């Protein structure tokens, strides 16, 4: 069971399908959070978001598992309280876009930090909710400005980003207030980097897991480059797609390009072991 659905679902199937978690009431709470006061100045934080510091890298290097686990726990405590994300599918995205207001298309802080991507090439992030009305107060957070979109326009933009191969993720700003709808890929997304490189769960897996039906897979390999989580490979001996269910984040991007419909998403909760693998 997803702890966030348990705590913040309030009867909705998923915590992020509960409109209360996008509401203004929670935006007010964020003002008291240290992250809102400008802790993003450090490049390991700016764009790097919850990136782990040098001390963590050194502990890993010397094989100090106790220190690694302690620092991971610290990172989890901070991220889960303030700013963390979860992968969602395109079906869930459509329900969310109909629920959020306003919808602001903005530049991605991660790609600015990773590649210094110019603003005009970097409009891949959606800011949502009442905080977006105040974007002009923080010109640097919203470098390049904000384009406000209708739900239909937002669906078109998000559709084209997903076709490019970017994964939809939702982010909290003072959990459980949801205010970021990001479109992420490896290696540019700091959250995917931190989760996949270090198993530090600043990005949670989604509520689904992709499975391949080998009798339907025609071995075309189109799905392989869609995976941003190192979960999908191509078996050179079987000539079929191969998905690691423990590593799959359930975004569904591989499924979208599968012409013979060999890939399906199954509910994570329906698989006893995977039900607790986030």
């Amino acid at each position, binding site marked *: 069971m997803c702890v966030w659905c348990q705590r913040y679902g309030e009867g909705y199937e998923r915590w992020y399908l509960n409109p209360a978690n996008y509401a203004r009431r929670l935006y007010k709470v964020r003002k008291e959070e240290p992250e809102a006061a400008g802790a993003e*100045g450090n*490049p390991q934080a*700016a764009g790097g978001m919850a990136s782990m510091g040098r001390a963590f*890298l050194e502990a890993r290097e010397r094989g100090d598992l106790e220190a690694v686990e302690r620092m991971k726990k610290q990172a989890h405590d901070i991220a889960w309280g303030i700013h963390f994300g979860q992968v969602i599918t395109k079906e869930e995205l459509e329900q969310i876009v109909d629920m959020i207001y306003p919808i602001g298309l903005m530049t991605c802080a991660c790609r600015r930090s*990773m590649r210094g991507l110019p603003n005009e090439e970097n409009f891949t992030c959606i800011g949502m909710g009442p905080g977006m009305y105040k974007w002009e107060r923080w010109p*640097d957070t919203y*470098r390049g400005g904000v384009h406000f979109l209708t739900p239909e326009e937002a669906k078109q933009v998000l559709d084209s980003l997903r076709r490019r191969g970017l994964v939809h993720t939702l982010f909290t700003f003072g959990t459980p207030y949801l205010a970021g709808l990001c479109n992420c890929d490896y290696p*540019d997304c700091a959250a995917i980097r931190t989760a996949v*490189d270090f198993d530090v769960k600043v990005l949670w897996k989604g509520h689904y897991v992709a499975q391949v039906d080998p009798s339907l897979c025609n071995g075309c390999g189109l799905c392989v480059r869609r995976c941003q989580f190192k979960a999908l490979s191509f078996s050179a001996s079987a000539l079929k797609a191969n998905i690691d269910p423990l590593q799959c984040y359930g975004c569904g991007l591989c499924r979208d390009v599968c012409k013979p419909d060999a890939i399906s998403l199954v509910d994570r909760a329906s698989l006893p072991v995977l039900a607790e693998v986030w």
Partner: protein
Amino acid sequence: MLPTIVVEDSKCPNPLACRKCLLVCPTRVLGLGTDVGPQKYREIDPEHFIVRGVREQLCTACMKCVEICPNGAIQVAVERGVPA
């Protein structure tokens, strides 16, 4: 061994516009950030942008960033590993 990356900020006046080192690194070891927090009503000036080593666990000390920097602002130090 984990390499150490040192950037001399005085030789790196506008990394947001230059970004050569960020693009040349094969594993995105470097990160772009600022030495000030977000400022209300003001965009941060380019001279406050800084480059730092962030993901040194993936640095192979290939020295591509050192070579490409037009101002020689980056140094990468690595201790030679002892053969296992």
